[in-house]
């Protein structure tokens, strides 16, 4: 075999030698293709697997781990969820790249037998002043919109940041949540000799061949030069596939099921056989196809969308086929389960590949060298003496409110159907979304978070803060953090600096999750996120769900009533490192990530949760990008119908005004309540050792912030609303 043959498939010379060893002979082109995919970072995680073992698999709730998607048990319900990246496809074809990303993550959920009930998406783009970034942003939103809305799963949340490091390599991480009766859960495995292997869904074409392995294994050489075949999403077929699969699962005749995503039939056959400890005998002629004379390896590698593989009890084939036919979907028995532990692929009876299922899934594990980047030493140094204090804080606050990473995301989420399925009780526009579980009083809160500037300057703490903020957002909605899914987006792992960032983030992630007793139930790794010029900021996107016992208590971030007391849980430190303020006002990405004290963080969150559970709090909002001032502004102006001002006249900090207003100290939550409830909340805080102070009172048409007797901010609500609310639309539609 000529080296360029396997190299073009992303296999190294060493890997090729290993394959020869395993087989004891030369692989056929089909086999080679199968190895290249199964051993790619996308499927086999050879470079990251070792470190992922660090992540905690247990937590406060009983976990379900080991399938494509993981989850937790809640009574006799299973909540299944996962986040996955579709970065590279979205960079070359934003609309379809994002759309197929959404489709893929939804299939990961309903293959588990769970009905998809919510979507979130975590997006990262280059600055909007570059035309191409704008084009990608619009395309991605268009793609998520066109797929999610049509397939009938509400997109209830997510997060969007803009940073130059994503110019040339955007991030599109889609997350889906599903619900199943726990006795109806499905697993991706095939067993029981003689049982049928059934193909269902769209027909197979040449699209996406090698897409995942090759895309996931190489950074972009020259911008657009790399042109993989991008698929077209078909949300209509996916919707039919969801309903048909649910029906099929309910018959009780389905032994196992898996979606054909990355590497299509290859992944499916080998992984289902391996998981079931059995073999498979597949006849490719039975595979529904869209194009003439496709080669066997093309059929095995095709990533055509909206396809499922089912293992069905012998004798029940017709019963299952009938269901898929009713939904006008292709369905065909393409093989049988065997005893021999071998995955045998035939074309017209003639064997084109015959492998031990284990050899395929046993991807190699690599130890990657890592090295702390030298540049950090200098970057982490920040001397506030060299940062001039702004003359006009009002101007700075307006500028921050209009900064795309902070500004209202309504332009985006109002293009998503976030209400279909009539479960969304806390709509987008608050810290977290809450969907109810029909038939119970309970609800699920969900959010995604990750400030990659923190991770760039301090990967370990940056990753911890991502988790802390996600949990805080849930707490603000009244939910108790339950479990995490992650999407680890990094640069080229073969570069020691990049791999160091990866390693540190995973360590930070696992440490804080252990301490919070939050399990990481699923996730996804996306490496090689680099443009010709630079790598992306390390971006361990965190998707977190929480449980709220009484959805009627769910709490929004905006002020509700005039005359409410404004309480600050936690306190402000004089720290400006890594802040949005340094970037917007001084064009600096410098200093260290904010400090994080896990005890303090927990105390603050517990207090907020308790206050909301007891029905004492009218609103709760955490301080994140833009610090105290931006958080207060958002409380004033993010109400759907009416805006309410506030007078903050009881801050007495001895520090620089800009640090007090815009510093991004962690573990801070702003709560409002009736005057009469203040003492009750103070007691809760005292009991939990959470710093507590009443800092002001809601009311009026302005945001006014004093420190001592010095007035730092005085802004009419309309002006802030204008900057914050219209910013994205102005930048995009011009």
């Amino acid at each position, binding site marked *: 075999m000529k080296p360029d043959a396997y190299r073009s498939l992303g296999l190294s010379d060493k890997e090729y030698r290993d394959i020869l060893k395993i087989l004891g002979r030369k692989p056929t082109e089909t086999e080679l293709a199968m190895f290249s995919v199964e051993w790619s970072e996308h499927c086999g995680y050879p470079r990251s697997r070792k470190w992922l073992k660090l992540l905690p698999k247990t937590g406060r709730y009983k976990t379900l781990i080991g399938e494509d998607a993981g989850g937790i048990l809640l009574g006799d319900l299973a909540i299944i969820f996962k986040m996955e990246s579709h970065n590279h496809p979205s960079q070359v*074809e934003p609309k379809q790249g994002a759309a197929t990303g959404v489709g893929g993550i939804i299939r990961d959920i309903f293959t588990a037998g769970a009905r998809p009930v919510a979507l979130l998406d975590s997006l990262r783009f280059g600055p909007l002043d570059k035309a191409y970034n704008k084009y990608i942003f619009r395309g991605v939103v268009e793609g998520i919109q066109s797929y999610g809305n049509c397939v009938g799963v509400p997109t209830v949340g997510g997060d969007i940041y803009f940073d130059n490091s994503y110019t040339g390599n955007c991030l599109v991480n889609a997350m889906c949540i599903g619900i199943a009766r726990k006795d109806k859960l499905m697993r991706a495995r095939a067993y029981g000799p003689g049982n049928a292997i059934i193909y269902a869904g*769209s027909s197979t*074409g040449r*699209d996406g061949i090698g897409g995942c392995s090759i895309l996931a294994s190489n950074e972009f050489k020259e911008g657009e030069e790399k*042109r993989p075949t991008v698929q*077209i*999403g078909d949300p209509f077929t996916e919707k039919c596939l969801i309903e048909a699969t649910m029906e099929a699962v309910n018959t009780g005749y389905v032994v196992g099921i898996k979606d054909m995503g990355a590497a299509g039939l290859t992944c499916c056959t080998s992984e289902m056989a391996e998981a079931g400890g059995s073999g498979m005998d597949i006849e490719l002629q039975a595979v529904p196809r*869209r*194009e003439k004379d496709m080669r066997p390896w093309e059929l095995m590698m095709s990533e055509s969308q909206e396809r499922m593989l089912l293992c069905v009890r012998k004798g029940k084939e017709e019963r299952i086929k009938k269901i898929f036919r009713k939904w006008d979907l292709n369905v065909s028995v393409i093989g049988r389960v065997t005893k021999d532990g071998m995955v045998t692929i035939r074309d017209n009876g003639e064997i084109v590949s015959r492998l031990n299922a284990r050899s395929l899934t046993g991807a190699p594990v690599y130890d990657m060298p890592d090295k702390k980047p030298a540049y950090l030493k200098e970057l982490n140094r920040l001397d506030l003496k060299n940062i001039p204090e702004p003359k006009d804080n009002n101007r700075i606050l307006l500028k921050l409110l209009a900064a795309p990473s902070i500004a209202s995301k309504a332009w985006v989420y109002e293009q998503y159907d976030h209400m279909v399925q009539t479960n969304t009780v806390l709509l987008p526009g608050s810290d977290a979304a809450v969907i109810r579980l029909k038939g119970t009083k309970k609800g699920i809160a969900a959010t995604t978070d990750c400030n990659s500037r923190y991770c760039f300057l301090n990967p370990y703490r940056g990753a911890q803060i991502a988790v802390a903020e996600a949990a805080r957002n849930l707490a603000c909605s009244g939910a108790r953090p339950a479990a995490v899914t992650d999407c680890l987006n990094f640069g080229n792992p073969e570069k020691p600096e990049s791999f160091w960032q990866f390693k540190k983030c995973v360590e930070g992630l696992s440490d804080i999750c252990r301490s919070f007793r939050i399990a990481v139930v699923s996730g996804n790794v996306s490496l090689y996120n680099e443009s010709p010029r630079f790598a992306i900021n390390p971006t361990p996107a965190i998707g977190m769900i929480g449980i709220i016992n009484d959805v009627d208590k769910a709490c929004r971030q905006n002020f509700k009533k005039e005359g409410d007391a404004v309480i600050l849980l936690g306190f402000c430190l004089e720290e400006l490192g890594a802040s949005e303020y340094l970037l917007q006002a001084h064009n600096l990405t410098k200093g260290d990530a904010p400090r994080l004290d896990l005890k303090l963080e927990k105390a603050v969150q517990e207090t907020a949760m308790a206050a909301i559970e007891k029905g004492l709090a009218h609103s709760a909002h955490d301080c994140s990008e833009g610090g105290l001032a931006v958080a207060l502004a958002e409380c004033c102006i993010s109400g759907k119908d009416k805006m309410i001002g506030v007078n903050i006249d009881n801050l007495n900090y001895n520090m620089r005004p800009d640090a007090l207003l815009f510093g991004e100290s962690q573990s801070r939550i702003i709560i409002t309540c009736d005057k009469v409830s203040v003492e009750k909340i103070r007691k809760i805080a005292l009991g939990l050792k959470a710093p507590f102070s009443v800092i002001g009172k809601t009311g009026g048409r302005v945001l006014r912030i004093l420190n001592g007797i010095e007035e730092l901010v005085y802004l009419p609500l309309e002006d802030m609303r204008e900057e914050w609310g219209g910013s994205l639309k102005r930048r995009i539609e011009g």
Partner: protein
Amino acid sequence: MLKAEINIILKNGVADPQGLTIKHALESLGHKGLGDVRIGKWIAIRLDYKDKKRAKEEVGLMCKKLLANPIIEEYHFKISEE
């Protein structure tokens, strides 16, 4: 006055779910003997100048830069007088 008529359509090999769905609909309406059905865009642009050569160049650029994505779509256009 010139008029450019541009056809933009998915490349061969790229799945066309819309086209497929339309085909099924036509069949269920009783139309027989249908092969491939593909759906694309048709864009007509009026140009208020007469220089055909310039028109060719400009329209070619429009397609490349904005109207079509070469990764999944191909385009053809013709320019005629009005």
